[in-house]
């Protein structure tokens, strides 16, 4: 602030010098007039600006709320999708068989029990069971064996209360191996029933406690 006086003096000197350089008379001071229209305009402009400010705040607030709602909706949709995927995974879990056998192994009964609970919780769902074999048996016989493997799983499910018309069966014999390695492990993996959703699987509810 101590510099303000010398600075204004300096500026005054520059202004005087400029006026002298023009060589003419100094311009008369403007006559003060009262323009009421201009005043009204400026008030209106200020008012409009205020309204715009308020609108934009309101819009931003609404947008934020909308996005939050969307997030909530997406979260719940994701939850539903996650549940559907989880249930679908349980429904698709394969069961395996001993060589040239079509009986349900004791350890696989729990897998089928889960499917029964899911079918009960989702009455619109129908499934297709497809039996498969390893490549060691006879090619033609394996189609019949795969058919029997699919029927064994269907029988287990239907005997426990699921309507027979919700479960269809098929066989691919040894024609669609999961693992072509030709080892004991690969053969064991290839001897299987696959479970596919045929209808009603867009949204799946998990049974209570699962």
């Amino acid at each position, binding site marked *: 602030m101590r510099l303000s006086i010398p600075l204004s003096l300096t500026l005054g000197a520059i202004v005087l010098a400029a006026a002298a350089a023009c060589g003419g008379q100094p311009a008369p001071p403007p006559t003060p007039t009262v323009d009421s229209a201009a005043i009204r305009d400026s008030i209106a402009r200020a008012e409009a600006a205020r309204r715009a400010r308020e609108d934009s705040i309101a819009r931003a607030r609404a947008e934020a709320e909308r996005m939050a709602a969307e997030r909530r909706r997406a979260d719940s949709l994701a939850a539903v999708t996650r549940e559907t995927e989880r249930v679908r995974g349980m429904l698709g879990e394969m069961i395996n068989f001993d060589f040239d056998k079509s009986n349900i192994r004791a350890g696989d009964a729990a897998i089928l029990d889960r499917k029964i609970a899911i079918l009960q919780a989702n009455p619109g769902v129908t499934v297709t069971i497809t039996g498969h074999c390893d490549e060691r048996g006879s090619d033609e016989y394996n*189609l019949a064996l795969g*058919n029997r493997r699919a*029927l064994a799983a269907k029988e287990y499910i239907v005997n426990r209360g699921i309507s027979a018309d919700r479960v269809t069966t098929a066989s691919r014999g040894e024609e669609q191996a999961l693992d072509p390695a030709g080892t004991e492990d690969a053969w064991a993996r290839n001897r299987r029933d696959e479970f596919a959703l045929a209808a009603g699987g867009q949204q799946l509810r998990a049974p209570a406690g699962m």
Partner: protein
Amino acid sequence: MTRPLFGLALTLALAPPALAQDTVPPREGVRVGITYEPGVRPGVLVVDGPGDEWLDSVRAILRRDLEYGDYFEIITLPPNDTTELGIGAKGPSGEFVNFGLYAALGADFTVRVRPGETSTVFLYDVRAEAVRREMPVVLPPLQDAGFRLAVHRVADEIVRAITGQAGIAATRFLFLQRGRIYRIDADGADLQPLTSAGTRAFSSAWSPDGRRVAYTEFHEQGAQIYLQEVDAGTRRRVGTTERGLNYTPTFAPDGRTLVYSRSDESGTDVFAYDLDRDCCLQRLTSGRFADNLSPTFSPDGRRIAFVSTRAGLPQIYAMSADGTGQELFAPFDYGVTGSSNAPDWSPDGLSLAFHRDVGGSPQIFLMDVQRREVRQLTSAGRNEDPTWAPDGRHLAFVSNRTGNRQIWIIDLETGRVRQVTRGGEARLPAWSGRMY
């Protein structure tokens, strides 16, 4: 097998028989010297000589067909020596035929092709010094689709003229490779796909006249049977195979009935379908707790052998063509004998070929139908899905003896084997009748 004879390097075109893998006793004699010995396969010489590519091809196909027929020992000569054979040269009494030289070479019969608009195939009986058969035949140009088959028919007639029974050169196989049905000539030439890429086929069968084939094609869930005209390529679905898995089709010997197996929720059973009337599906087996599949007709069309699991493991049973009189066909020891599958009834009706698990691998077995006696034919590797040649002497099957599964032919008289297919895994062969 090369030895000097009259200054000629005489090569007996004997592919070393691959007997090691098969337990059939070889009855093949060893040709010693140049004299004919009873019990030894007769020697046949297909005479070479000046000729164009067409004539060379005809001779080469004939020579190979006769070789593959396993009746004869084919005598081949180095190309330079053929001029000394003097065949076709004019002598004082018509055409001069050097019987003395053929006899010295070990030939019992000599084949000569005289090309023309209508070609003539001469079959000489060397020991009798006479023409055994003179066959006028119109052979198409080399590029003609029917060329090879026409030459195969000549080879079959030569076999008939010598042995009384036609050869099997003019026959073909159907087989499954990478999901498609292919057709191939019995000599391994002229491979053609019959089903489109992108579809998945399964078992197939020839109609008795060789003009149609039936095969299974997988669809979304089921598998349907199609009837396809071999030449035209047109096909139609067998109406009664809309639902379930329908497979192992086989034609009755009169071509009017198609018998196949169907797997569905009631199990697997054998059905008969009236092709003539395009209707009238008849269920031949009924086993809620057993599977019944893979039917094969006796040549008189009155019996059907098939596979059934009614005793637990699959074994071979038989019934009348209407499904009555079902009985165990191929004897087995319960709890000891392995699974038996894929029966095929021989064209003479006397023998049934099938495969049976021995120590975890399928092997080819033959059953004497009259005596119900079973003997094992192969012993090493996997050997499965036998199919008879129309001569009842040759049997084709799938074997993995060279690594992957391929189609092989065994001559039951000599034990000689040869490979038909190559490349990707070939499965489920079906041998046609003669293509006449």
